C-alpha cells in the first residue's frame, strides 16, 4: 500500500485537474455531435449523458432485435391506461374513421393523415419485444407505417433535431432524436398480431420504438411535431418522462 505522501497528493491533484480539463473538452465535443440528451443536466445528468452518448456511438445504424413468429407471446400484457375521454370514445364509436394524425413544426407541408392515408404510405411489419422499465416484457408482431415515411411526406426540414409526439392521453408526450426518427423500425403501428391494434395496446395508433423501453412507445398518438428547439416543449427536458424522474433516453 502506498502511504499518502506530498508527491502522491501533487500527482493526484494533477491527475484530477487533467481529468476536469478532459471532461470539459469531452463536453464540447459531445455538444457538437449531439451526444447530450435534453435532460442531460442535474445530479443524474452525467450518467444519462454517458449512457446516451455511448449508445449513440455504438448503435448507429443497428436495427432492433427481431424474433421468429413462434416467439410471439400468447398472452401479451398491457398496462392499464386512464379511461379514454369523450372525444376518444366518439372516435372509437366511429371505428376510428375520423382519427387524425397532425404533423407540423419544422416541415415544409404541415398536414394531417387519416388511418387510411397512413396505410397508403406502405405497411411494414416487425416482430419485436416490448420491454417495460419495471422488468417484464412480451413479443408481438407490429404492423404499421414507418415514421420516416410520414416525415418525408410532410417534407421534414434539414434543421430538425427532434420529433415530438403526443397522445390523446392528457399530458402524454415524448420525443426522439433524428437517428431514432429515421430508423425504419420506428413504426406508427396500427396492427398487432394480424389484427387491428387493440385499444388496450394503444390502438388505433401507437408509436413503436423497439430500441427503447416501453414508455417511449406512446399509445393513441395523434400529433407529431418536428422541431429544432426541444427546449420549447414542456419544462425543456425533452419529454414528460424526465418531469417524473424518468430518463428521456430509454435505450438502457
Amino acid at each position: 500500500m502506498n502511504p499518502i505522501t506530498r508527491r502522491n497528493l501533487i500527482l493526484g491533484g494533477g491527475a484530477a485537474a487533467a481529468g476536469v480539463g478532459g471532461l470539459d473538452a469531452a463536453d464540447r465535443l459531445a455538444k457538437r455531435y449531439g451526444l447530450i440528451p435534453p435532460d442531460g443536466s442535474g445530479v443524474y445528468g452525467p450518467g444519462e449523458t454517458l449512457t446516451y452518448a455511448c449508445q449513440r456511438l455504438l448503435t448507429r445504424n443497428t436495427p432492433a432485435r427481431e424474433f421468429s413468429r413462434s416467439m410471439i407471446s400468447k398472452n401479451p400484457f398491457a398496462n392499464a391506461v386512464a379511461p379514454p375521454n369523450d372525444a376518444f370514445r366518439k372516435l372509437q364509436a366511429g371505428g376510428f374513421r375520423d382519427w387524425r394524425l397532425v404533423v407540423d413544426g419544422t416541415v415544409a407541408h404541415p398536414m394531417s393523415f387519416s388511418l387510411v392515408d397512413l396505410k397508403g404510405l406502405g405497411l411494414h411489419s416487425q416482430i419485436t419485444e416490448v420491454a417495460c422499465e419495471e422488468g417484464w416484457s412480451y413479443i408481438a408482431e407490429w404492423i404499421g407505417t414507418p415514421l420516416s415515411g410520414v416525415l418525408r411526406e410532410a417534407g421534414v426540414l434539414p434543421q430538425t433535431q427532434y420529433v415530438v409526439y403526443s397522445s390523446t392521453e392528457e399530458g402524454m408526450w415524448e420525443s426522439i432524436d433524428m437517428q431514432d426518427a429515421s430508423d425504419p423500425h420506428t413504426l406508427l403501428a396500427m396492427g398487432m398480431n394480424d389484427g387491428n391494434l387493440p385499444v388496450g395496446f394503444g390502438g388505433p395508433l401507437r408509436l413503436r420504438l423497439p430500441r427503447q423501453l416501453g414508455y417511449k412507445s406512446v399509445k393513441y398518438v395523434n400529433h407529431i411535431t418536428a422541431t429544432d428547439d426541444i427546449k420549447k416543449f414542456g419544462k425543456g427536458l425533452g419529454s414528460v418522462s424526465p418531469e417524473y424522474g424518468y430518463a428521456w433516453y430509454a435505450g438502457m
Partner: protein
Amino acid sequence: MVRVTHWLTFIAFVALFVTGGLIVISHPRFYWGEVGNVNTKPLFVIPIPSSRDTVPNGYNYEMPDENGWSRALHFEAAWVVVLAGLVYGIYMLWSGHFKNLIPARCDWNWQAYRDRIAKYLRRAPPDAAEARSYNVLQRTAYVIVIFVLFPLMIWTGLAMSPSFTAAFPLTVELLGGRQSARTIHFFVTGLLLLFLFVHVAMVALSGFRSRMRGMITGYTRDSQEAP
C-alpha cells in the same frame, strides 16, 4: 489508486444495491428465457408487495414507487463502477500488483484449499507470509469478484438494454434471453452481497479500526517494514 477505486466502488455498490432493490419491487417476479410478464409462468416470485398495481400478488398494499430516480442513480452508479474498474484494472496491470491477487501457481490444487480451510477451522493464527499477503482462499474470492462477478453484473445489465442488444444481440442470446439476464443479474447481486458480508466480517475479525485506517490512509501499524 487501489484505495480510491475501492471506496468509489463501495459507494457505487451501495447505491446500486439500494436502487436495484427499489426497481425490483416494481416487478418482484423472475422468469427464464426471452420474455416474461404477469401472464406468463414465473421462475420464482419474491413474496413481497409490489410498488405497482399491475402485479397481482394478493397483497392489498402497494410499496412506494421509486423507480424514476432509482433507475437514474442505478445507471450513474454503474458508470462509476465501470470507470473505477477500468482505472483499477489499468493500474493493476501497469504496477504488476495482480500477481498478489491471483493464487500462486503452487496453490492451484485442492490440497491448498483444504489446508487453508482446516487452518481457519483450527483458528490457527496466520503465518508470517500471510500477514503480508493474501492466502489462497482470499485470493480466490477476490479473483472471482473482480474477474467473474463484476463483469457478469455489467454483462447481464447491458443484456437488458434494448438499444445495446440491438447492436450486440449475442450478448443477450448467449444468456438465454432478456429475462434470463435479469434473473442472473439478481442472483449475482446475492453473491456480491455474500462477498461483502464475509469481507466486512473478516475485516472486523482482524481489527476493524486498524484495517479501516490502512484502507483509508495507506498506513498500517507496521508500515515501516513494508517493502
